[in-house]
């Protein structure tokens, strides 16, 4: 049994490594100083797809990512781990999209790819933690969703059974296909890059990336079309411009405020034995602890 899987993945700033170097004097982050990474839970999603592919020969995995041209890295990362191909959705018209406009754009691309059985994404992206895009895409496609997936129990051409982790415990649910699954960070970790695939797909590039290459390289794309990564604009996916980007976003940012914490009159201590003991004694005496 072969299935067609689409994995949704996002390139995100590495919010876990906002070191002091990335902080500007006004307390905001210099995004350019942060490395761009594969959103961690989208890697869990990719792993789930790879597992289904392994167990069901003939299954194919396509990655779909929306972002600036450099987000083509996400597709390459996927290819290095066993995906079969991918699509980069990139267009200025997508800029400023909230989750709803994002899911609209993704759903247009998915319809264009067509003929899918399972769509898998991470539960949420670390730069927003909203967990909204997965369910919104499912709604736009009119298919059921299973969120918070932790483990694949079984899949056949008709249905998929998933164990999901929710705050109240675990739940095993079975959904008819096609369906959309969002995967938790507690699910199986993604396998590393495969050395052979790395060699094979090292030069996989979108057309706009190819333009910047030396002449010698460009001819490899005519002999090895699998190295050409699909790059789609709003037109390519028949998206209605009104529903894309800023204009397609019902939520608007009214204002952004820099929060300055006015330093409290705090008591400052060092780490000496005397200072620590004195503090402990004080906390015990005034019944704060103990």
């Amino acid at each position: 049994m072969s299935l067609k899987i689409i994995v949704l993945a996002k390139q995100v700033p590495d919010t876990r490594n906002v070191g002091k170097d990335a902080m500007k004097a006004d307390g905001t982050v210099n995004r350019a100083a942060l490395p761009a990474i594969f959103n961690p839970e989208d890697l869990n999603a990719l792993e789930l797809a790879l597992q289904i592919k392994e167990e069901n020969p003939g299954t194919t995995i396509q990655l779909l990512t929306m972002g600036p041209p450099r987000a083509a890295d996400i597709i390459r990362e996927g290819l290095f781990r066993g995906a079969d191909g991918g699509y980069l959705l990139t267009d200025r018209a997508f800029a400023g999209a909230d989750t709803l406009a994002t899911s609209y754009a993704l759903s247009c691309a998915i319809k264009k790819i067509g003929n899918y059985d399972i769509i898998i994404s991470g539960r949420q992206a670390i730069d927003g933690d909203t967990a909204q895009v997965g369910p919104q895409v499912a709604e736009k496609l009119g298919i059921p969703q299973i969120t918070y997936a932790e483990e694949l129990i079984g899949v056949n051409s008709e249905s998929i059974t998933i164990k999901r982790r929710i705050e109240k415990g675990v739940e095993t649910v079975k959904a008819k296909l096609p369906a959309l699954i969002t995967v938790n960070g507690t699910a199986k970790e993604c396998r590393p890059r495969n050395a052979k695939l790395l060699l094979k797909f090292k030069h996989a590039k979108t057309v706009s990336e190819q333009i910047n290459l030396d002449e010698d390289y460009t001819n490899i794309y005519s002999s090895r079309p699998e190295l050409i990564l699909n790059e789609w604009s709003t037109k390519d996916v028949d998206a209605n411009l009104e529903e894309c980007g800023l204009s397609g976003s019902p939520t608007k940012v009214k204002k952004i405020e820099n929060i300055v914490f006015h330093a409290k009159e705090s008591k400052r201590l060092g780490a000496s034995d005397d200072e620590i003991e004195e503090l402990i004694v004080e906390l015990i005496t005034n019944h704060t602890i103990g």
Partner: protein
Amino acid sequence: MNNLIVYCEIEDGVVADVSLELLTKGRSLANQLGCQLEALAIGDKIENIGSVIFPYGVDRLYILEDKRLAVYSTLPHSSILINLFKEIKPQICLMGATCIGRDLGPRVSSALHSGLTADCTALEIGEHSDNKANKKYENLLYQIRPAFGGNIVATIVNPDCRPQMATVREGVMKKEIQNENYKGETIKLDASKYVGDTDFVVDIIERHIEKSKINIKSSPIIIAGGYGVGSKDGFDLLHKFAEAINAEVGASRAAVDAGFCEKERQIGQTGVTVRPKLYIACGISGQIQHIAGMQESSMIIAINNDPNAPINNIADIVITGTIEEVLPKLIKYYKKNSK
């Protein structure tokens, strides 16, 4: 009249705290707007749920009962909200940022093309002007949440689409009964008019409800560790101290991401909100998303080797030193002086 509606989460006939917190907040927003507060309850055998819900000042309670609705499932609940909202056209809909609210909210907002803001830390009412379109809006819901990119907080509005939807985590808003005897109107709706058979294409095969062993919310003392704690072993030390002084261990998202401790211990905008008597922040820098979940602690002690760590600004007592040095001393002198 376009009212404010709160989706009430119900498990085994019990209304979730977060829903009651949102009813409390909803009541005060509705007063400001001069509209009614409505609640929506979906489940099986919940005809008496009003006795719990009305005291929060609810003017109208919609109840939908069906055996098949006993346990939450995405599609049936989505259909109910979507179809009902088309009918009653609420101006605002609030729900908990729980596994249920985060599964349901986006689906409903997509179908209605209404904006949804996740994990708000404050909700207010205010005006808005769109200078480009030369439009003025009164009485919009300000959905306020920290944004990525430093110590910044964003105010989000949905000027044109309804309902304005927002999710809020448990513990962010306060739960307060308005009047024990408050009586609103109950409207029982026929579930079959809102849900179709095709909504039941997902079967729940098995459910294991386990009470989480971790409950940091109600602990009067919390010792929270951040990335600066450095390792799981470092967290063992926090646990040791916590055990000695009868406290719970919390964490920053960075510490959770690094695998130092369980996700359930994460404090902050997208974790748990706490208001303990004493909060000891160990190796936590004090980013806005973290502070959002603990700034109302009565007393804050910060232990950090950086004398300029932002957390120090909100701390009552600042200890400048490394965790490795300070923590063992705290344990040692507590043991020495506690008897």
